[in-house]
């Protein structure tokens, strides 16, 4: 029984410690915005159970968690202050479609075939590439799409 109570205490300590770390390091530090954020979150998730079940001492676990968060924070700072570092780490967006035409070199570079892209375009309501002015794969792995025929805006009616 006392060991269960101790495990609950360790869980609470880790919970509040992580809450504090996340709060101090900013809103977007760890999440799923970019692949690196995602992996960092997985690493942290994987580290905590060792502390819960007393496989490693609490202080050591907290120290290692801090080091992971701090490293990630440094990467984030590098991202912000050095655009070259950002491009190195996250690469640059890859265009797939320009003016209704496929760009085969972009598809090849990302190893995506055009059926996959068509599926995404359909989900956004475009029948085929002819309707698309421009589509590119962003660094987070999402496709940004701009249709040839843009939706009506309020200013269009005011003329």
């Amino acid at each position, binding site marked *: 029984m006392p060991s269960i109570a101790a495990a609950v205490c360790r869980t*609470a300590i880790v919970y509040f410690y992580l809450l504090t770390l996340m709060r101090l390091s900013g*809103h*977007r530090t*760890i999440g799923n915005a970019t692949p690196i954020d995602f992996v960092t979150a997985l690493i*942290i*998730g994987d580290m905590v159970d060792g502390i*819960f079940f007393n496989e490693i001492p609490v202080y050591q676990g907290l120290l290692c968690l801090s080091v992971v968060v701090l490293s990630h924070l440094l990467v984030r700072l590098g991202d*912000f202050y050095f655009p070259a570092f950002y491009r190195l780490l996250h690469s640059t967006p890859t265009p797939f479609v320009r003016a209704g035409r496929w760009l085969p070199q972009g598809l090849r570079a990302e190893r995506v075939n055009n059926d996959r892209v068509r599926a995404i375009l359909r989900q956004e309501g475009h029948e085929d590439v002819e309707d698309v002015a421009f589509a590119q794969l962003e660094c987070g792995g999402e496709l*940004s799409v701009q249709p040839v025929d843009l939706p009506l805006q309020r200013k269009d*009616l005011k003329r």
Partner: protein
Amino acid sequence: MDLNDILAAVGRTVLVYVFVLVIIRLLGKREIGNFSAFDFLVALMIGEVVDEIIYANVSIGMGFAVIGAIGVLEYVNSWATYKSKWISKLTSGSPTVIIERGHLNRRGMAQERISEEEIWANLRMQGITDLKEVKVGTIETDGEISFVKEEWAQEATKGDLQHARSAVRS
């Protein structure tokens, strides 16, 4: 590994699965549906505890106690955030403005350490190609970026069309 071991592992797996299902259900929609970065971490934590129980590295009682503790902490945290604006600010911070009236807000960007390229990627994903269209761009407390467009750049509605028609007629 004999048959009993296998059956025991299957039994533990089912038990843990049902237990986690109950915990998540009790926590409600907010925690799991609308992930903030921290809620995401909490979900990962639960996932890591589960495999220790399934492979009998820890006793079921111990594992359930830990998952239960995580659930209670999440509940208390969300309840406190709901009850008190002060605690909400303390644990989740406040939104940061990064675009104002079509211009990048450098101070907000530095505060959140978001680069111009990242903002542009987000704008493109929401179909915005001109910064002027954005009235306010905000990094919300869950890390999502929201853009509110200027009145003229907003999507025209059926009501707008009606106004335009009656203006043409008169």
